[in-house]
């Protein structure tokens, strides 16, 4: 489904964000990308839809080589990849419905989108998605009137409105409380299962990653240091990814109720420990 081959990204500042990263994701697999801040997680998923241009390496979506596309081809390919963002990245002053329909922009002409005339099928589908994420009542509210969890649901619905084949998810729970975080992760897993979507999910909450991901890829300083099942995240592996820390305290808590946030050190603190 998605294949990365020797993906490398060096920013103009000289920072090497990704160093020779290769892996493959089969259809329907939900992969968690973990690693400390600055490990290259965000860069990696932005290289896939080329919001960030890779320095070298190749990326395939199915049979399509994304890294060779021109502007038009890239826009068409982006329709097949839904992206969900850390701080929701909704257009704050547009309504929930407009935000949802913005997921259809790749399919409609500029003039129809300018006068907000979307095909009836798109609007029907948008209502279905709103119902799916539980926001039917909010359709006509402005995005900035919603709570964090509601906004992220709109973000998910917007990505699904594209009818994507894969979701690129960047820290979906970073600005949410523990309970909402779990609800959002559960929703993500469910919609991926319903639609057979693959997903790459950047996440720094190891406990959430363990619980909701099928497979974990650990990044450290732009290189893959772990690739395997969530069960394989032993303290030794976590130390390999994040650096020295007492990991047993967090793994003991991983089975507590939904409202108790397990004590996992934030990625920011961990960078210092590296």
């Amino acid at each position, binding site marked *: 489904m998605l294949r990365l081959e020797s993906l490398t990204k060096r920013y103009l500042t000289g920072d090497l964000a990704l160093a020779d990263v290769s892996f493959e994701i089969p259809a329907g697999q939900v992969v968690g990308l973990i690693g400390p801040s600055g490990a290259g997680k965000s860069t990696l998923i932005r290289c896939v839809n080329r919001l960030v241009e890779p320095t070298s390496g190749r990326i395939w979506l199915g049979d399509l080589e994304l890294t060779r596309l021109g502007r038009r081809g890239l826009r068409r390919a982006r329709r097949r990849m839904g*992206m969900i963002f850390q701080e929701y990245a909704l257009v704050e002053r547009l309504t929930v419905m407009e935000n949802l329909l913005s997921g259809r922009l790749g399919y409609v002409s500029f003039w129809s989108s300018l006068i907000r005339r979307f095909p009836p099928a798109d609007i029907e589908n948008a209502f279905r998605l709103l119902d799916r994420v539980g926001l039917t009542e909010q359709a006509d509210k402005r995005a900035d009137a919603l709570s964090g969890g509601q906004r992220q649901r709109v973000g998910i619905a*917007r990505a699904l409105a594209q009818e994507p084949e894969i979701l690129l998810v960047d820290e979906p729970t970073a600005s949410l409380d523990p309970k909402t975080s779990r609800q959002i992760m559960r929703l993500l897993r469910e919609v991926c299962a319903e639609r057979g979507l693959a997903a790459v999910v950047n996440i720094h909450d190891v406990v959430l990653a363990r619980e909701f991901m099928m497979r974990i890829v650990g990044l450290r300083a732009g290189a893959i240091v772990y690739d395997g099942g969530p069960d394989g995240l032993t303290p030794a592996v976590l130390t390999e990814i994040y650096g020295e820390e007492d990991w047993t305290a967090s793994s003991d808590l991983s089975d507590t109720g939904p409202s108790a946030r397990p004590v996992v050190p934030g990625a920011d603190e961990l960078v210092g420990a590296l």
Partner: protein
Amino acid sequence: MAIRQTPDGPIWRKRTTPQSLALWFGWLLLVLLFVLAWEAMTRNQIWAFVWDAPEQAADLFGRMVPPRWSYMDQLWVPLWDTINIATLGTLLAIVLAVPVAFLAARNTTPSPLLVRPIAIFIIVGSRSVNALIWALLLVAILGPGLLAGIIAIALRSIGFIGKLLYEAIEEIDPRQVEAIRATGAGPAQVLDFGIVPQIMPAFAGITLFRWDINIRESTVLGLVGAGGIGLQLKSSVDSLAWPQVTLIFIAILATVILSEWVSARVRAALI
């Protein structure tokens, strides 16, 4: 920052002693400069005129009241012209300034090295000339009348609206734009969905504020023949018809208050 170690522990002051002395010296120089400049400015002043200023003012005021209310009949048309000059000039300025702002903003300009400097130059050029001076030039080119006034207002406003709008464009949240790009939207759609909603409040505020300013500016354009109530003001002053001047002042004041009220209402409705 000055932290000094003493046996009793560190002492903190905002500035070191040399820094404080330098600051005092700077203030001293400023005061000296002010005194010298005052000296130079008032060298040619005829003080006798200043000493009897209160009497002169009282005398003028005495001739200015009561206002000649009947003159109002002749003011309605120029007053309406004045408002039209301001409004049409602002609209014309919007049409021209919006594209310039997008070309000037760092995050939307098509070419930072070629197009952006040109757009910035247009903005600076427009801002550096007062509307009255634009009107002076345009009356010479187009002849006296409303058209010269409208274009003068527009030329001056392009820079104002363009500058404030491009600053607003540069301050937008890039994540919202990124999210729209990620859906596969084309550049025009990114503009429409990602950028325009974010700058709408700033745009409404800026243009209303400029319209407000333009009402005031267009009241004086008539002084140089560019239409509006300024023409009546000039002829009344020239013919020493002080009660008429008073009435014109009152009319301008009322118009400005009205425009202030209108723009406050519109702004509240839009944001």
